């Protein structure tokens, strides 16, 4: 069955912070029928189950202020996740966006036509512009190739938070948290809210990613998870320490945090070009993907930035989408790829935009595979240096840092890839 066919002006896939913000902005700009599809029963995305603070706070100081200030301020500023989600939903609906929950996009039936399934049946929806805002998820144990037994008691933070905050489920008695990024500390907070004793937080990094500490939880650095034990229930997490020592932490619960990947399935099913670094769609400063009329926003692009940043990207996509609807969009296909050399991990956006467009906040975001104390970032194209910039702080894995974008005007549109190197 092919289902009912409909047309809308803008179709947004995903009602998390980015999708809702895009919907609110475009509906307010009277872009015609703006429809947001959300496969969950409730809109709001990941913040729905993040019962800690830090959402949408005073991010106005600078778009990326949190990147350097994330440490101690992490959980205190702004509002809670559920509150942030509710505000995002309310703003989109108030602006006039049609928000439909419990509707899943199951595939493509044309360049800007999607197939959907919902309790009311099947549909084919064709849009003048499609915005992908499908978000990101944490890699599960299997994708991290953690060997051992497969007992119950193994969670990602996303599953843990939903179990505790949305369903009130029993978790266990003693837990180990793997990963020390902010999301790991959020996992500790959730475990404590569920009455679970947190034995330790472990990270394979030799130095903590952040100054952030969860009180009364020992942080074991330089410790790699080598296996899980237990049959009917998890009984322990085996670790190998830097000096070769091995230990097993006894626990009935382990939470694997961080290691986010974009949920790029729909993008890939649509044969949209991905960036090899981010594994999200390759995109330019106008949030355009390789498929004309299909835009991408939020953590689908670069897993994972904070909700406020995703929402900001959602708002930023409105202008290029309005250009698309008005027929005044810049020509496609002119963008140069931005590629990074290791140990840099990725850059976003990773294409140059139309007419020298700059990314939001006039900054590119980067991540690194390893710690780089005050690196010198060099941008070049075909052997020609376009820009050099000394970072004033240490770049660490798991945390974004930024690169000024004022060199974009100097990119040769007929040249090859633009390279970003850290010296």
């Amino acid at each position, binding site marked *: 069955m092919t289902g009912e066919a409909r047309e809308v002006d803008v179709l947004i896939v995903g009602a998390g912070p980015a999708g809702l913000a895009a919907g609110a902005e475009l509906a307010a700009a009277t872009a015609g029928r703006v429809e947001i599809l959300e*496969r969950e029963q409730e809109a709001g995305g990941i913040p729905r189950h993040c019962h800690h603070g830090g959402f949408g706070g005073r991010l106005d100081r600078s778009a990326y202020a949190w990147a350097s200030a994330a440490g101690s301020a992490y959980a205190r500023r702004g509002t809670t996740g559920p509150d942030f989600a509710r505000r995002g939903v309310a703003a989109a609906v108030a602006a006039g966006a049609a928000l439909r929950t419990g509707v899943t996009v199951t595939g493509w039936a044309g360049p800007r036509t999607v197939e959907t399934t919902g309790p009311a*049946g099947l549909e084919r929806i064709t849009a003048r512009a499609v915005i992908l805002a499908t978000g990101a998820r944490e*890699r599960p144990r299997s994708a991290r190739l953690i060997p051992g037994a497969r007992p119950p008691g193994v969670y*990602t933070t996303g599953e843990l938070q939903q179990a505790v905050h949305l369903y009130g489920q029993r978790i266990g008695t003693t837990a180990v948290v793997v990963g020390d990024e902010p999301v790991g500390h959020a996992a500790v907070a959730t475990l404590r809210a569920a009455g679970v004793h947190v034995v330790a937080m472990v990270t394979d990094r030799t130095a903590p990613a952040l100054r952030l500490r969860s009180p009364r939880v020992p942080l074991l650095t330089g410790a790699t998870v*080598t296996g899980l034990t237990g049959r009917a229930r998890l009984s322990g997490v085996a670790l190998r320490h830097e000096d070769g020592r091995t230990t097993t932490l006894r626990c009935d619960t382990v939470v694997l945090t961080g290691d986010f990947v974009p949920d790029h399935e729909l993008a*890939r099913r649509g044969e949209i070009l991905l960036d090899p670094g981010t594994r999200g769609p390759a995109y330019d400063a106008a949030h355009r993907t390789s498929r004309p009329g299909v835009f991408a926003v939020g953590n689908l692009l670069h897993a994972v930035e904070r909700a406020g940043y995703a929402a900001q990207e959602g708002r930023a996509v409105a202008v290029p989408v309005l250009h698309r609807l008005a027929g005044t969009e810049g020509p496609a296909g002119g963008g140069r790829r931005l590629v990074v050399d290791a140990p840099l991990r990725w850059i976003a956006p990773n294409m140059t935009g139309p007419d020298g467009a700059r990314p939001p906040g006039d900054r590119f975001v980067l991540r690194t595979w390893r710690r780089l104390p005050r690196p010198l970032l060099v941008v070049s194209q075909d052997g020609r240096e376009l820009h050099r910039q000394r970072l004033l702080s240490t770049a660490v894995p798991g945390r974004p840092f930024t690169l000024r974008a004022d060199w974009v005007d100097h990119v040769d549109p007929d040249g090859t890839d633009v390279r970003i190197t850290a010296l």
Partner: protein
Amino acid sequence: MTVTLTTAGPLPPLDDAEGTYDVAVVGAGVVGAAVARELARHRLRTALIDASDDIGNATSKANTAILHTGFDAAPGSLEARLVREGRDLLAAYAAETGIPVERVGALLVAWDEDQLAALPGLRDKAERNGYHASRIIGADELRAREPHLGPGALGALDVPDESIICPWTTPLAFATQAVRAGVHLHLNCRVRDVTADADGHTLTTSRGPLRARYLVNAAGLHADEIDRLLGHDVFTVTPRRGQLVVFDKLARPLVGHILLPVPGPAGKGVLVAPTVFGNVLLGPTAEELDDKTATGSTADGIRLLREKGRRIVPGLLDEEVTAVYAGLRAATGQEDYRIQEYPGLRYVAVGGIRSTGLTASMAIGRHVIALLTAVGLDPGEPHDLPPLTMPNLGEAFPRPYRDAALIAGDPAYGTLVCHCEQVTLGEIRDALASTIPPHSPDGLRRRTRARGGRCQGFYCGAAVRALFEEERP
């Protein structure tokens, strides 16, 4: 339809007419379930018992899920015959009940001159096994049919009828049909001792005694222990661990066929194969162990598989891994099944059923009935079992989330709970209310695919558990 399925408490009392069974089948894996289903066609009181809380919960749940042609079996062996017969029986049964099967074909890829030179011998062996459709293809045809194959492949033996099948629906279909036809299924029922007398056997189980006139031992990894309880010392089951890696569905276009290595002295080797769920499987390892509970994966095993996989289909390694698991094959040191009847004992031992057991299961079932008859059981005339339709878990066949008519009749089939696997609320409710309901979230996964996808529960884990617990407070 009166269904008797118990999971706790005492078994039916021995003095009750219901309490003495004509036949007890120990082990509710794919083989035990197939035997029970075959017995269900006769007017017999049959018990199917298993130590775990679900059917197919040991060796049967963790294999390579291939419906073999038997082209490479040892000619003349019992295994060769039962695989050949079982393949046709199961293919027909799958078509009838909706067990997903895809005839993708196998290619035995030769990576060096020695392997290339071994292909004619393998083709001749296939002929001796009564399989006549295999042929040798050159490097160019191989490359055209498998464009993502790694460099260096010289040619292949094409086995067009080798198929992939759902390893979970198959034993569930057998057991469901058996139970609906009156077979008693007792789970969480571990056999601790067996005593034989003139009239039959008394089994001492973890849930009390069970009496049966005839006994079938289909206990898989533990078949040797049951056999010893009956006074035999014929075979020893040495668990042979096979670790497997399941790649994301986005990898599926990389692999068209079951890609087998040319078997060498080290055994059958590592294969790359599509699954009926739309994933790609890499494995298995082959590790001789002495621990029948060692179903964990190891760092070395995963590393070895990734090395082999990189050679076979290099692009596979860039894809996300959805699952890593390990299964134990019941190796007995003899390259054949160990199926033996004992006339004086009213007993049939079904041991050493290795990875071909899924394919051979229905033929083993028939063979066991014949042996039971030979040792004195009068099964009477067989009758047809009521038809059965299983929920489809296969990606290549219509699934509820794309069925407009089904959704129009019940919106629960349009309500997706597990997004990665596109499993609907309707399917989960059906599984929880089915003849043999799951007793764990993993059991629910094997009946619906829920929580078995790329996110492994990041999105749906809590919701699926809530649905499961709602049904079983």
